[in-house]
């Protein structure tokens, strides 16, 4: 008896004009797992992330989050269902302060103006259907918007409480990632490593179930990398997360991933525990000739 997977990707394909960026990829991630996603440059890793968050609409296949189909859903609905991510090339709200960045991440969790509509919808194939869906959501949207604006203008006690709790929570999150005391600095003024950590805090603020990390240790020195690995493990325990991470450093993959999925040219070429994947001939072939492949083959025994 296996538990119901948190994420189930079936036959996912994405085609950009002539290029097949993802070619019927299947992937199943059980709750609580840290899953590594590796592959050479251009293998489709980030494309897969973009599909999982609703940024791209896949041209084929399906994505189920805890049994709910999320492919083709608008991004904010996917986020509301509990998918959060960080970006390979850090994308913070550069001109907002550190704590504001986290508060934006917490947008959905701040009960101002009643709950935003969380009705997951069927995927919209046509622009026309999309417009119709927008119109259908209009009355509810108008009401919740009016309540939100009125709340912001009048500031009733409930509003203040919600805002205060959100600020408190944002501070705790910042503390958890080690950014205490930096709340009022502009995000763009943070050093690189701190920007990565802020991205993490911002993603956590939305109370995700599934956290997607796009190269969380890119550009970090060995010390920082170790600290980040530690942080990821700790956050998983603390917040009960399921994590998928794209990673190029084999050390990180071996160190914290329970299972690894390998993509090459948009196809899944291997999947399994890191040690098994490492020995997989297909994987070695995909990487062969690169520096990375040598590191991989010589990397036996390195944690």
């Amino acid at each position, binding site marked *: 008896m296996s538990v119901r997977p948190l994420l189930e990707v079936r036959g996912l394909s994405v085609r950009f004009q002539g290029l097949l960026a993802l070619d019927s990829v299947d992937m199943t991630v059980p709750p609580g797992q840290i899953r590594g996603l590796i592959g050479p440059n251009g293998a489709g890793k980030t494309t897969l992330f973009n599909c999982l968050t609703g940024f791209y609409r896949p041209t084929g296949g399906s994505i189920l989050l805890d049994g709910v189909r999320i492919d083709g859903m608008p991004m904010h609905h996917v*986020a509301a269902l509990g998918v959060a991510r960080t970006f390979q090339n850090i*994308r913070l709200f*550069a*001109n907002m302060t550190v704590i504001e960045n986290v508060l934006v*991440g917490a947008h959905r969790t701040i009960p101002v103006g009643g709950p935003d509509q969380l009705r997951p919808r069927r995927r919209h194939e046509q622009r026309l259907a999309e417009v119709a869906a927008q119109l259908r959501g209009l009355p509810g949207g108008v009401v919740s918007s009016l309540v939100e604006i009125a709340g912001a203008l009048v500031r009733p*006690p409930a509003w203040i409480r919600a805002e205060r709790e959100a600020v408190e929570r944002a501070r705790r999150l910042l503390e958890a990632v080690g950014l205490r005391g930096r709340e009022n600095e502009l995000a763009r003024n943070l050093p690189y490593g701190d920007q990565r950590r802020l991205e993490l805090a*911002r993603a956590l603020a939305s109370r995700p179930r599934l956290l997607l990390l796009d190269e969380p240790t890119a550009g970090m020195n060995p010390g920082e990398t170790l600290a980040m690995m530690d942080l990821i493990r700790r956050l998983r325990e603390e917040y009960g997360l399921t994590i998928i991470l794209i990673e190029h450093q084999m050390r990180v993959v071996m160190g914290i991933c329970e299972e690894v999925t390998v993509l090459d040219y948009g196809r899944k070429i291997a999947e399994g525990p890191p040690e098994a994947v490492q020995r997989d001939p297909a994987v070695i072939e995909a990487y062969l000739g690169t520096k990375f492949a040598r590191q991989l083959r010589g990397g036996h025994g390195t944690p």
Partner: protein
Amino acid sequence: MPDLRLWLKVPPRRDVARRLLPAAAVVLFALVPAVPFFTDPWLRVFFLVGLYVVLGLGLNIVVGFAGLLDLGYVAFFAAGAYLMGILTSPQSPVDLRLEFWVILPLALLLGALVGLLLGLPVLPLRGDYLAIVTLGFGEIIRILLVNLRDITGGSQGLAAIEKPPVPGWQRIDEPWQWYYVILVTAVAVAFLSARLRDARIGRAWEAIREDEDVAAAMGIDTVKYKLLAFATGAAVGSVGGVLFASYIGFINPTSFTLQVSINVLAVVIIGGMGNTWGVVFGAFILIGVPELLQFRETSDVLERLGWLRTALDAPFAALDALAPFGVWRVPEPETWGRLVADKRFIIYGALLVAVMVARPGGLFPSRRRKLEFEAPPPSEVAEPSALAAGGSQ
């Protein structure tokens, strides 16, 4: 009692001066009509400045907060003005004789509705499309106003628009009374827009301005919030229109041209996007000064600058004496004020480019406010990272 402090927006002690300043400024503004020097023509100019402060603050929500370029703001201004005109002018077919105070909330609604209808098809798309569609829509509105003669009075317009009655008193008509009306409105709009900015909705707007895709990934319904910014800004513009129509008493399509949109945009951009005081300053410099330059008093003062003209004109005069053809000469000083006022749009255009290139945040960029905290612990010294430069944008 942090609750109360947050609610009243009582700042930590060190910020008190910053909070007292606006209050002091408002008191100062309130005293202006009591100064005998400021005669009715002055107060009329100040009303105009105040009106543009209101419009600027409204557009600021759209452009400054949410980062959406609206080039047809005049449409909402016209919507409010014509609502007032149609419902109170005896020349309109639907003269319901509604009072000003009934129309004001109606205008708020109408403005928001027009904004919603205009934004709905365009806002789901990229920002630049909004700019061109609003630009065109401003023009369409003018065509509609001229051509829907039965309702709008065509190019004749509508006259004898009602003034706001004050219960137990008279109707507001004197320039000093209007001055207070616009002052109260401007302060109210400034206060309310600051509250929106400091709430969840304001953060959502800023996030959209900074990076729309990431904002969506954070769970923000970007289309909804863009629509809200657009509709809120439109509602403010519409209220400005009601005030304008009631103040001026008659309206026709010539008051609702592209120039109005340009004026408001220039006030917001040159003053400083997102910044209330920037808008006030921008409105004074861009709207008030050109009007004041046309005052008799101004030309009287300028007249004394004859020496400056002689100095400036010297090279031209020398050339004129030598050349067989007429050479351009520096005009009489008393006409300088009018000259600048006449060429204001050329100056606005150049300023928009210059300000954006030199200081993309406007002359007075919005200062980042701090959320209130108990004294934050000293931040650790940032370790210099070789990658910091490459990684951050």
